């Protein structure tokens, strides 16, 4: 193809891409023109943030004690008994309101926010009064982070007499699972792995239960023998007696402990069903074949697992308020950043045109094509863009300017295409280090969960892709076409 024609085609393509990227494609829809090019996805620095304020729960409860100093629950209260002592007890006593406990609470909240996968968050603690403020990107359900933060995380197993058998200190880890039952439904469960202390307690519980079962069986055996000796011909009666006693034996062995989360009973676990040495499985809700119900049960179990794994809060907090804040940066600040980038690009371009003349002009044209492709890629790949992206954009400009200078210097006084190709090969070798560094930055940053950093990584990645693509399609073609 004629070199001039090639140059014209490439130039037209660059102009077309630039128009689409900077202006857009407008199509008439419902009596108005709509831009078909997607808009930029914004990170919290340019979008919305949730700010939630947590305060120490100041609730004071009335607690009744009987003559023996035991707490009387509402359902156990004897209305005729007026000898109960009523005490005013704060949910959070003075002695637990220490800076150390505030810091522990803050760490637990941070762990929960990390475990639920919030892309970015800040937790602030006022050490004077224990107030905590959480700030996170509004990319999730409005109160998701706050919701998890306000739980105390109390997990307990109690027996039928309301005695605490196991608590948070005995649980090492909590996981969610589900299995398909014989009826085809799904049962969601919480799998609690116990630490050594918890395992010892379960073993003791099982041993106690076995001892009790043995005692009960022995008593029943004696009764049965007595019945047989006393009434030899009364077989039906013996059978009835034996059946009743068998039933009693079975009932005794079906002892269970109940799992409580945040003082709410979740489910029972039969002691006999605890077959593993260190794991207890608690069923969450009833089994179901309805997808929505199963998902709800899974969410419920997941919340419990995350909260239990993060630890029990030493202090109970309550959500004071939760608001959605609009952008940290105003339009002025965003515009300044854009003007700075444009200004740097213009200065570099002018320098290239003045120093390298025709080669400089084609390089600037190629760079416009590269920037246009870059901006389109950011939009079409839904990269989250924030103020931090401007820093990476500035760094990409430096990289582009450096690569251009290497290329242009190598082919500055070169007249033929062959010599130009050799010059370009030398230039590639010299810029390989910077390209390796850029790829490293893009890859490492992109895999970080922190939204700002991941955004920087993705912007860098698409920037390098645009530079490499643009170089081979535009820059190289136009520079070689300038030669004989």
């Amino acid at each position: 193809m004629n070199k001039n024609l090639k140059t014209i085609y490439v130039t037209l393509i660059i102009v077309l891409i630039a128009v689409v990227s900077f202006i857009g494609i407008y199509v008439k829809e419902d009596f108005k023109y709509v831009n078909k090019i997607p808009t930029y996805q914004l990170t919290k620095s340019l979008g919305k943030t949730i700010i939630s304020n947590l305060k120490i729960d100041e609730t004071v409860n009335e607690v009744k004690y009987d003559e023996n100093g035991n707490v009387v629950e509402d359902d156990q209260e004897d209305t005729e008994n007026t000898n109960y002592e009523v005490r005013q007890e704060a949910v959070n006593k003075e002695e637990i309101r220490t800076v150390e406990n505030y810091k522990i609470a803050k760490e637990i909240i941070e762990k929960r926010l990390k475990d639920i996968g919030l892309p970015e968050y800040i937790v602030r603690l006022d050490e004077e009064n224990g107030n905590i403020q959480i700030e996170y990107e509004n990319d999730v359900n409005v109160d998701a982070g706050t919701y998890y933060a306000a739980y105390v995380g109390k997990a307990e197993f109690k027996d039928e007499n309301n005695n605490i058998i196991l608590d948070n200190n005995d649980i090492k880890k909590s996981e969610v699972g589900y299995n398909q039952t014989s009826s085809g439904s799904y049962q969601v469960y919480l799998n609690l792995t116990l630490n050594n202390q918890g395992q010892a307690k379960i073993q003791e519980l099982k041993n106690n239960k076995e001892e009790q079962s043995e005692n009960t069986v022995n008593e029943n055996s004696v009764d049965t023998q007595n019945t047989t000796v006393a009434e030899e011909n009364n077989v039906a009666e013996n059978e009835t007696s034996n059946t009743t006693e068998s039933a009693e034996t079975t009932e005794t062995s079906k002892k269970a402990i109940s799992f409580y989360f945040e003082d709410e009973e979740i489910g029972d676990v039969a002691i006999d069903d605890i077959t593993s040495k260190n794991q207890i499985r608690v069923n969450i809700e009833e089994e179901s074949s309805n997808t929505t119900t199963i998902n709800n049960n899974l969410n419920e179990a997941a919340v419990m697992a995350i909260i239990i794994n993060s630890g029990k809060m030493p202090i109970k907090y309550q959500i004071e308020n939760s608001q959605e804040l609009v952008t940290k940066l105003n339009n002025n600040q965003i515009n300044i950043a854009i003007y700075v980038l444009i200004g740097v690009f213009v200065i570099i371009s002018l320098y290239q045109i003045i120093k390298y003349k025709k080669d400089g002009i084609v390089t600037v044209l190629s760079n416009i094509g590269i920037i246009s492709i870059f901006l389109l890629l950011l939009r079409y790949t839904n990269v989250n863009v924030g103020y931090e992206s401007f820093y990476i954009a500035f760094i990409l400009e430096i990289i582009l300017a450096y690569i251009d200078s290497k290329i242009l210097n190598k082919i500055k006084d070169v007249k033929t295409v062959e010599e130009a190709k050799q010059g370009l090969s030398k230039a590639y070798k010299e810029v390989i280090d910077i390209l390796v560094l850029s790829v490293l930055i893009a890859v490492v940053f992109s895999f970080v969960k922190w939204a700002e950093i991941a955004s920087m990584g993705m912007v860098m990645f698409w920037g390098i892709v645009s530079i490499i693509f643009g170089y081979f399609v535009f820059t190289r073609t136009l520079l070689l076409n300038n030669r004989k």
Partner: protein
Amino acid sequence: MKQISSKTKISIVIITIIIVAGIAMMFIKGINKSIPYSDHTRLEITLNNLEKQKVEEIAKETLGENIIVQTFGDFEDKIAISMNKLEEDKKTQFQDKLNELNEGENVDITETEVGKTKLKDMMTPYVLPIAIITVLFALYKGLKYRKDGFIKMFLTPIVDVVVAEAVYISLYAILRIPVGIYFMPLFASVGIITLIANSICKSNSSEKQEKKEKND
């Protein structure tokens, strides 16, 4: 032993002074944090019929210029005003002027004390990725230019980044620049630009070396 040029000596001295001064300032006065990152008070107001601009003007008049005003709420009908220290008389003044603006009716203001964000919490997400990139790039350079000495090639980028970041933080401490939302992304950028500069310098010196060898 290779002679250090006078320019390099001067640079080393200046950098050392900046870093030492920065460390001293951090011990004496600590880092200056912008309002959202320091202990501050937050006032929340539901605008109702009040104009946001007028409320902002009253806030600047009574509470001072050093405040941050942000909008929130589903209909962006509420504003939050953050400031470092709220004196009681200023708050009363602000309340009175707001009530006046609201035609004598009391404007409900919610006051919240917000704790500071620790520098450690701000830096933690950034330090590890930058450290990983620096070490990997240093390893790459060490292996690629092992002829010039692996240890030297490996350590140079690491030392460069550490010194650059130390100078960056020291300048913030010395010049009392408020640490805010730009601090950490700039911190990351300083590290990246240092590595780029390191790469460019090495590339240029290799080019000079090649030219010298050619001429010889």
